[in-house]
């Protein structure tokens, strides 16, 4: 493909002061260490490349280019030729620091762990003293000062994520779970210092750090789950064709960044490339693969006058197009904007933990204030009053509450992961549990997503195979696949949009559309191929996108769970109805645009249904982002995988299985909340009546956390979902 040679991707390279360049590429197809080695070797061996490091976890390749040398396009081409399609990232977005928040949380967790472990060295002897063992006041004071020296800096550092979040929440006039945590920790430190000064027994330095340690575990697990969901819209934009070939008035072809394409520009698109912007065909004929845009299985014919969409893949012939929209006005960009809007509307979802916090925060703070006022009023003095109020805050601090949700969700997503389902956020599991309605895409979801030859005698296949092997057309490729390896016809001429002609055993033969082979076809269906030797009767090959094996079982399982099921597809009515009927689904809609899909999902949600969208194409991406929850198969385009909450491999049974696990997880979370409430009902009065000492506080806190974690573990031990 000669057009690949002259692409200018220098816009994607960021040069620093000494002209050394940095380029970041999203590389797909890497699965293991061998791929990693091959990718890095391929990139390093190119001239002008100083260093290349591939991150197998994120799929990003970071390349350093020598000063004033190195060409991004050669790297992309070399990787693509090696079997790893690469897409450059816009430098403005790519060179952002990765996962700063995760590192900060991990460091806070490390510091809290260090603090909790070492403080205990000094407080455990003090607990012994509480039970009448030998420990005089001086020793206890020394122990407490040691504990203070370790706990205070650790708690202040490890508490920063909570303090920051609490502060920003307070400034917005709200109180999230971090408000009582922050107040609790700071008040505990103040009270403990004042107790130590006054040589008292009630210093809770260990409680403050241990509390943060346990909470940070929950926070870190939650962050890990959320991290994957981040880059949805960004990866979609990277998927767009980064450059286009513009045909000048002088007849010369020039490669330009796609964002420079203006309405009215003449563009050249060769076979194998994607159409850069929405355009109208001026010259040439070809077949276009619109699967990414509309979900249609059949390739469509493009000839002068045909309107084409950005992102469509040119299959067979060179096309000259006239741009009718700029890149940011093209259909793909519109889908990206819809996805963003969908993701925003979804972020309005209030998570279970936040709902609990909204109830919990006012109650606990009222209790603490009442305790302070009450104890002072009955004449025990301000010191005792403050001590008991602090004890209320410490003992009721939402340790178990902070762990209740992330612990369950980590176990649940671990279980789904073993089942081949990747969960991208904890919130996704919560939303999935509420699902009442499932909307399936057809192509690639209910069906396998590629045409399969049906009912053809082996002799016929063998006849047509030499021509089929020479063609790029998806139907011909499917025919060639059915035939296996073998000879290839000679003197091949591929007639764009029509078929392929060649010589087999000295005789001229054609494979393609009915009209191309010389047959008067009544159906003129897009899912058939004709083959014939010159001047002989022709053979018809029919293709069908076959249903996934377990589609029917999965649909039945969903219906048993009381979930409504329907199909919404961009394909033509015939195949959609056939697939829906075979899968046992009675509600179906065909021929919808990506925007209609969003509208359908919106309408369902407006009528009070909680919709799970299951889709794989770019045409589903916006609906995936809009739906209450969404799933995409591992075979889906990257954008859809990014927009979806869950990505599954294997059969469709993953959908009912995931809903089952999500519902179980929700039950566990609610149990954990119930337990926390029960615990607080006992612990809070105990603290109010001054029955809490540092030992009891430590025991109660770690005990309640342990119960919550053990309850979460039950998820993993329980019977596997069917």
């Amino acid at each position: 493909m000669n057009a690949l040679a002259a692409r200018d991707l220098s816009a994607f390279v960021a040069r620093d002061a000494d002209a050394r360049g940095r380029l970041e590429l999203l590389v797909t197809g890497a699965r293991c260490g061998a791929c990693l080695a091959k990718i890095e070797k391929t990139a390093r061996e190119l001239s002008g490349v100083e260093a290349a490091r591939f991150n197998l976890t994120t799929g990003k390749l970071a390349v350093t280019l020598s000063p004033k040398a190195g060409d991004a396009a050669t790297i992309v081409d070399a990787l693509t030729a090696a079997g790893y399609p690469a897409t450059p990232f816009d430098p403005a977005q790519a060179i952002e620091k990765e996962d700063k928040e995760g590192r900060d949380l991990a460091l806070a967790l490390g510091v809290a762990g260090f603090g909790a472990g070492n403080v205990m060295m000094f407080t455990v002897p003090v607990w012994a003293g509480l039970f009448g063992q030998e420990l005089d006041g001086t020793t206890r004071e020394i122990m407490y000062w040691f504990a203070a020296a370790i706990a205070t800096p650790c708690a202040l550092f490890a508490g920063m994520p909570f303090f920051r979040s609490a502060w920003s929440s307070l400034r917005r006039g709200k109180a999230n779970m971090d408000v009582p945590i922050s107040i609790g920790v700071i008040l505990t430190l103040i009270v403990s210092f004042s107790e130590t000064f006054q040589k008292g027994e009630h210093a809770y330095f260990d409680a403050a750090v241990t509390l943060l340690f346990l909470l940070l575990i929950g926070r870190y697990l939650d962050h890990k789950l959320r991290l994957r969901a981040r880059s949805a819209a960004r990866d979609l934009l990277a998927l767009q064709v980064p450059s286009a070939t513009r045909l000048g008035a002088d007849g010369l072809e020039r490669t330009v960044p796609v964002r420079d394409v203006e309405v009215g520009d003449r563009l050249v698109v060769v076979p194998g490339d994607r159409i850069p912007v929405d355009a109208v065909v001026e010259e040439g004929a070809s077949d276009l693969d619109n699967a990414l845009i509309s979900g249609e299985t059949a390739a469509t014919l493009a000839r002068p006058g045909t309107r084409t969409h950005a992102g469509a893949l040119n299959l067979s012939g060179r096309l000259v197009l006239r741009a009718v929209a700029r890149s940011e006005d093209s259909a793909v960009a519109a889908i990206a904007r819809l996805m963003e809007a969908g993701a925003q509307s979804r972020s309005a979802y209030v998570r279970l933990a936040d709902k609990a916090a909204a109830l919990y925060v006012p109650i606990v703070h009222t209790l603490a204030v009442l305790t302070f006022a009450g104890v002072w009023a009955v004449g025990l003095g301000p010191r005792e009053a403050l001590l008991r109020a602090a004890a209320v805050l410490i003992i009721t601090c939402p340790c178990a509450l902070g762990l209740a949700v992330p612990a369950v969700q980590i176990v649940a997503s671990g279980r789904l992961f073993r089942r081949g389902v990747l969960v991208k956020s904890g919130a996704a599991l919560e939303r999935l549990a509420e699902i009442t309605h499932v909307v399936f895409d057809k192509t690639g979801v209910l069906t396998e997503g590629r045409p399969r030859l049906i009912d053809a005698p082996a002799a016929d296949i063998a006849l047509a195979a030499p021509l089929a092997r020479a063609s790029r057309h998806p139907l011909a490729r499917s025919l060639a696949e059915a035939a296996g390896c073998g000879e290839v016809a000679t003197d091949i001429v591929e007639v764009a949009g029509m078929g392929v002609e060649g010589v087999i055993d000295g005789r001229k033969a054609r494979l393609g559309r009915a009209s191309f082979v010389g047959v008067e076809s009544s159906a003129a269906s897009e899912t058939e191929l004709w083959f014939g030797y010159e001047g002989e009767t022709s053979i018809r090959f029919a293709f069908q996108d076959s249903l996934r094996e377990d589609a029917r079982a999965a649909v039945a399982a969903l219906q048993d769970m009381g979930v409504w099921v329907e199909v919404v597809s961009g394909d033509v009515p015939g195949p959609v109805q056939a697939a829906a009927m075979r899968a046992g689904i009675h509600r179906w809609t065909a021929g919808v645009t990506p925007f209609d899909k969003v509208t359908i999902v919106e309408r369902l949600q407006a009528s009070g249904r909680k919709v799970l969208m299951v889709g794989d194409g770019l045409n589903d991406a916006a609906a995936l982002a809009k739906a209450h929850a969404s799933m995409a198969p591992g075979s889906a385009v990257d954008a859809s995988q990014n927009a979806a909450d869950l990505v599954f491999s294997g059969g469709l049974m993953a959908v009912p299985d995931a809903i089952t696990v999500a519902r179980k997880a929700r039950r566990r979370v609610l149990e954990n909340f119930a337990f926390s409430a029960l615990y607080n009902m006992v612990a809070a009065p105990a603290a109010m009546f001054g029955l809490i000492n540092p030992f009891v506080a430590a025991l109660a806190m770690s005990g309640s956390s342990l119960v919550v974690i053990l309850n979460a573990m039950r998820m993993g031990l329980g019977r596997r979902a069917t």
Partner: protein
Amino acid sequence: MNIFLLLAPFSVLLGLTGLVAFWWTLRAGQYDDPQGDAARILDDHLREGPDDEPDQA
């Protein structure tokens, strides 16, 4: 009691050493690509090349 005053700070110091080591591994980006590192440790070829240093990006 005297031995306590010697050993307690010493043990805290040991803990601190561990914490500093953890901070260093975080800074060096050793948790950025667990899958890739799992592969690199098994493959000698991956340790060649000028950019063997931990990525500072």
